[in-house]
């Protein structure tokens, strides 16, 4: 039975663990953090690569694996992401673009078969690849935030059933209307469902949900952006980016 065409936007976990461990190479410090980071943002990297170098589409995964092995895992690569000079996302894009250019130029110098039209094709540097990358980046960040938030709230080791109620309230009042286009259930229904003694109970559940969401969002971004001002700046930048796209329709 045919599996049909490959999806345009692969999931972040497109690079399976078994392949990853077979990459070899010495990661800088071999950090689990870098490993997780690369895996997490694989999808936006792939999207950026495909959009920037469409003629290299057929070998996209090979190019990205080489980039990961030859650049990301090499000593000093991550330390060159000077956060005072720009965002980590932009550093990733620039690093990948330069890597591909260098390889293509090297191949040309060795007079090996190389798609020269691929080099010409991306001289114009359209905004779309960068925008597509950033859009997938935001999706990945928010996806990871929701995954961590749900796991946190459902954790049996946490204050239950309150913690699960927090997730449930957040889900039905905020997530379902966004993702399933549903109307939130009326307040009167919530009283029974969550055993609410007072409206302050209801509000506190929702406020708690918002705080937990925000805390996990901060941590997801902190993983790559660094602490404090850099994280706050990145959240603001991502928020403004999607607001701009949403306004364009």
């Amino acid at each position, binding site marked *: 039975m045919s599996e049909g065409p490959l999806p345009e936007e692969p999931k972040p976990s497109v690079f399976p663990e078994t392949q990853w461990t077979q990459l070899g190479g010495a990661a800088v410090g071999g950090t689990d953090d870098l490993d997780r980071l690369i895996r997490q943002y694989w999808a936006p990297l792939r999207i950026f690569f495909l959009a920037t170098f469409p003629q290299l589409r057929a070998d996209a995964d090979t190019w990205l694996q080489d980039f990961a092995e030859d650049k990301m895992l090499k000593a000093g690569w991550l330390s060159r992401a000077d956060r005072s000079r720009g965002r980590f996302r932009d550093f990733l894009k620039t690093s990948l673009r330069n890597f591909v250019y260098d390889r293509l130029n090297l191949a040309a110098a060795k007079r090996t078969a190389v798609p020269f039209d691929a080099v010409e094709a991306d001289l114009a540097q359209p905004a779309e690849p960068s925008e597509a990358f950033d859009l997938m980046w935001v999706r990945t960040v928010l*996806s990871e935030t929701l995954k961590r938030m749900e796991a946190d709230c459902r954790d049996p080791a946490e204050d239950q059933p309150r913690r699960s109620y927090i997730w449930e309230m957040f889900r039905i009042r905020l997530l379902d209307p*966004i993702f399933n286009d549903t109307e939130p259930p009326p307040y009167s229904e919530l009283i029974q469902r969550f055993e609410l003694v007072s*409206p302050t109970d209801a*509000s506190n559940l929702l406020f708690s949900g*918002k705080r937990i*969401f925000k805390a996990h969002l901060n941590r997801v971004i902190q993983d790559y952006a660094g602490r404090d001002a850099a994280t706050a700046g990145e959240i603001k930048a*991502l928020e403004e980016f*999607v607001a701009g796209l949403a306004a364009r329709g």
Partner: protein
Amino acid sequence: MPERDYSEAALRSNPKGLAALFNSGSATARLWRPDELTAIFRHQLTAPVLVDLGRLDLGAAAKLKGLTDAQGLILKSFAELFHHPTPPIELLAMTKDFAKANMSQPESALPHEIATAIYYLSIAAAAVRLGERISQLPDADLRRGYAWACAQEWIDADTKALLLTASGRLSGSSP
């Protein structure tokens, strides 16, 4: 089939959905719709006084325990407090403080409108039931506050009657 894997849904969401998701973490975004205020107000009036006032602060919780005369009312609802023939003035004052605290906080646990109504109701109950003034607001401001509350669709008839009576006892009111 509704999406239940929200992490997965975020990966496919359009910019509008992503923007809404960012906004969902905002503490200033409104929690409840205006059409839900009737149900919320009704629920607030039936809520036990002890539950909300007890959460005000540690001092309030201790004070509540010390109000032996009010013990019976502490366990009852806000509606029973407001409509009691002789409600303890300390309880009404604490209710006013509870409402005021919620009016002034951006992350208030009560919708601003509900907190404002409770604020004026506690002042009105003290004036009508006890002939006492528990607010330093001038009469003109009280009159405006009572009028605002009476104009809300979600205020029930008994509550409106109390507010109107209180307004009628203010200086400058028509006999």
